[in-house]
């Protein structure tokens, strides 16, 4: 229970300047990037040191008050949704770069440091930080770690978990621990491997050691247009079959191409699909592979092929891709971003089902696709001014998830489960699977105060609404069925 005594304690820890208790100011924090989920925290703190974080968590532990850590609030699954009776720990002031160690290819930062800032810090030495979520200009390392963020280049270089070497973290009882380390293979259980991607439910990270990579000698980026998403998908399959792992392969369909054009004019052709393929490595490797990619594109009737001649052109192509979500705002009053994963080879089948769903629902669905690793981002367009459309859009988005699961895919490739998809978890995992994951949860957080009501389904979150059965609009429209 948060009372005035508790607030005074918080104030003593973080100072007047570090405590937000005013209701209107708290509105700033009521949602993250998933704005359909809102909840005002009882209080927010903006600690500046790990010791302050530890003291806040310890206080919450003593009083059994829930707490939620938040970075820049760019998350898309409501993972940083505040608890109405809890404390929101806003990590943005902990944004110092603590150590740059080029000989060891390491950098140690506080969690509030922005993703792109890590690369900026080491760029002059010829290094970069590989995970590049589309929000990299604004999202913070702490949030990346919580979500195990990927990005366009994770096909070749992996996710956040492959680049975090060690953390300092405050456990839900206020104990500070060090997991992993600056060196590889710290003896002990790989708890770091499970904390990364745990969506803030196991600990609050206060310091992170990351690995940075040497910039490759050469990078080449190609954009190719196709007359169908199937043709583009076949080209992707041929690339993989040729034994090539590009740094990135991205696909956009007509809807998202048009949206990106309208928003940032990257000069994309008006096609049914475009592929962006990027190769990196040694000069000779890139040149050899690039010829193979061009041949694959030609074999699949690609047209309008553009090869970036310099960093500016390359930047423009990527701007078009990375702006795709936000650009949907140009073509639709509202849109719902879905994040699902399929085995890449099932792409044609799943896209056909999505097209059929689009026709049945009457809602436009754009697709942006990390084609190399099967991560789909369908964008369901709707107009919340039209009654029932917002709900319909949410159901259409859920239906797409069921297509992903039907082919052995996943509920989420990078946005996380958060509060958005917790109730979907039983569709992917058995009760035993979830109970086993809970063993980790209760080991770290027996009181359930660390980012509660996220990731795991609970009766409170997912229970049936009492009362007589009423068909949902999506059911009457033949879009969904209760099982």
């Amino acid at each position, binding site marked *: 229970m948060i009372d005035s005594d508790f607030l005074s304690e918080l104030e003593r820890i973080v100072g007047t300047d570090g405590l937000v208790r005013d209701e209107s100011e708290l509105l700033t924090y009521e949602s993250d990037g998933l704005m359909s989920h809102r909840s005002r925290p009882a209080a927010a703190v903006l600690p500046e040191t790990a010791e302050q974080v530890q003291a806040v968590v310890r206080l919450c532990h003593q009083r059994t008050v829930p707490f939620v850590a938040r970075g820049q609030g760019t998350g898309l699954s409501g993972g940083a949704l505040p608890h109405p009776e809890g404390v929101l720990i806003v990590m943005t002031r902990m944004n110092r770069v603590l150590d740059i160690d080029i*000989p*060891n*290819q390491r950098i140690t930062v506080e969690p509030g440091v922005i993703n792109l800032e890590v690369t900026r810090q080491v760029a002059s030495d010829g290094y970069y930080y590989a995970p590049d979520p589309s929000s990299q200009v604004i999202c913070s390392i702490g949030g990346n770690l919580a979500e*195990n963020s990927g990005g366009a280049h994770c096909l070749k270089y992996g*996710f956040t*978990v*492959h680049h975090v070497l*060690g953390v300092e973290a405050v*456990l839900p009882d206020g*104990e500070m*621990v*060090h997991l992993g*380390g600056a*060196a*590889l*293979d*710290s*003896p*002990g*259980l*790989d*708890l770091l*491997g*499970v904390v990364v991607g*745990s969506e803030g439910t196991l600990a609050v990270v206060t310091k992170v050691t990351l690995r940075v990579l040497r910039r*490759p000698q050469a990078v080449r980026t190609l954009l190719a247009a196709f007359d169908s998403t199937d043709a583009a998908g076949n080209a992707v*399959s041929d690339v*993989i*079959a040729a*034994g*090539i*792992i590009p740094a990135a392969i991205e696909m956009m369909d007509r809807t998202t191409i048009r949206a990106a054009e309208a928003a940032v004019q990257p000069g994309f052709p008006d096609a049914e699909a475009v592929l962006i393929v990027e190769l990196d490595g*040694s000069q*000779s*490797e890139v040149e*050899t592979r690039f010829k193979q990619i061009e041949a694959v594109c030609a074999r699949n009737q690609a047209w309008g092929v553009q090869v970036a001649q310099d960093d500016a052109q390359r930047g423009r192509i990527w701007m078009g891709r990375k702006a795709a979500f936000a650009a949907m705002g140009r073509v639709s009053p509202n849109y719902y971003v879905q994040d699902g*994963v*399929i*085995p*890449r*080879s099932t792409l044609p089948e799943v896209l056909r089902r999505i097209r059929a769903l689009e026709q049945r629902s009457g809602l436009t669905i754009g697709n942006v696709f990390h084609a190399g690793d*099967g*991560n789909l981002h369908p964008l369901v367009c709707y107009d919340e001014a039209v009654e029932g459309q917002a709900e319909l859009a949410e159901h259409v988005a859920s239906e797409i998830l069921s297509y992903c699961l039907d082919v*052995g*895919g*996943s*509920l*989420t490739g990078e946005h996380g*489960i958060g509060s958005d*998809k917790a109730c979907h*978890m039983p569709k*992917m*995992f*058995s009760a*035993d699977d979830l109970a086993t*994951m809970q063993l*980790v*949860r209760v*080991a*770290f957080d027996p009181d359930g105060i660390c980012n509660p009501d996220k990731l795991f389904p609970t009766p409170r979150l997912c229970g049936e609404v009492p009362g007589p059965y009423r068909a949902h609009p999506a059911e009457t429209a033949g879009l969904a069925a209760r099982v």
Partner: protein
Amino acid sequence: MTTITSASPADAVADLNSRLDAPVARVAAHTDIIDGVLPRLVVEPATPAQVSQTLAWATERGRTVIVRGGGTKIGWGPTSSSIEVLLSMSELDGVEAHRHGDLTATVQAGTTLSALNAVLAEHRQWLALDPPDEDSATIGGIVATNDSGPRRHWHGAPRDLIIGMTLVRADGVIAHSGGIVVKNVAGYDLARLLTGSFGSLGVIVNATFKLAPLAEASRTVVVDFPGTDQCAPYVAGLVAQASMPTALELAAPPARMLVRFESVETVAEQQASHAVTIAGQHGGTAVVLTGDDETCAWRAHDARVFGADQGGTILKVVTMPAELSSTLARIGEEAQANQLDYAVTGRAGLGVLHVLLTGGAAARASIIMALRSRVPLGQGSVVVRRADAELKSLVGVWGPIGDGLPIMREVKRRFDPTGTLGPGRGPGGL
């Protein structure tokens, strides 16, 4: 909780077989001895259900279980004073699925790495791991120990490649984590948690991995240096030139480096010749190997420390990559001071080394303590890999774990409250 019953092994076998859907339990034979300890009974399950039945029985009866794959690393970890049930996974083998279009495969835990890779090679793919003993080491054992080899430099370790797992808990519950897609952040990553857990949290029954395409061509540059001092500058020289080898190995003494390039023919050739030039600039004498010569060179390199005929103690020494020279020098000095023969091989770019020591037990203990005392926590570690029981008890297998140990113990307690799974053998003595 754990009670060693006075029932004879034969009675225990009968008791367990009555709970199994097939009589896969038997009395242990001398070939089942681990670190001089004869298990009471051996179970050879052919299905995950039989693993589950065995563990449920063991937990209920208060018996301890040790899991064995190919047995190649069974001596790793602390020695147990008694072993009640040895769970031998070699019957649980086979590739469940190779989704070559998706570059993934699901394989049962008892499958050997070479058997898996033979199947994957049909589509010119492989599970990009090359730890020692690939013909007998099983997937379950490799994952449970997070073991890897030279090409970890480019491809990573099992924890980097695993995308899904089926495990059986100590209470017999079968659970899944991850899935069959390479990108997936749904739920806690139990597969990664179990990787490197030495069987302390659950029994791995299958695993799903992301795969790599087999390279069309390979070249290995073998560089001999006058001393180990030149190795680290050579590594730095390669990194500075954005060289992208798949393996960057060191061996000493005498100082030698093996740098492997895998790509299409012309590219591998070109990169190798570039590495030769850089070697010359650092005072090394280099040759480029391919084909059988290359295979032989790598086999000989592996055997330096892990060869079957090598007795002695094997340590895993991890250092910060930039401390490579000083670490090698220290190992040399300490070996000399303690009158020990030694050999080092390992990942020069990552700072992960294996050290083979031969000589007196007291001297071996002394060098381990000396090396550990010089490594700040988090900046490296000295773990005993293979050693006699006496040395293991003298110095401990793991060395300091740090302030994460209590939460590791708590995770172990939640997964295995009765201490069924190899008590004391897990990392940090879990």
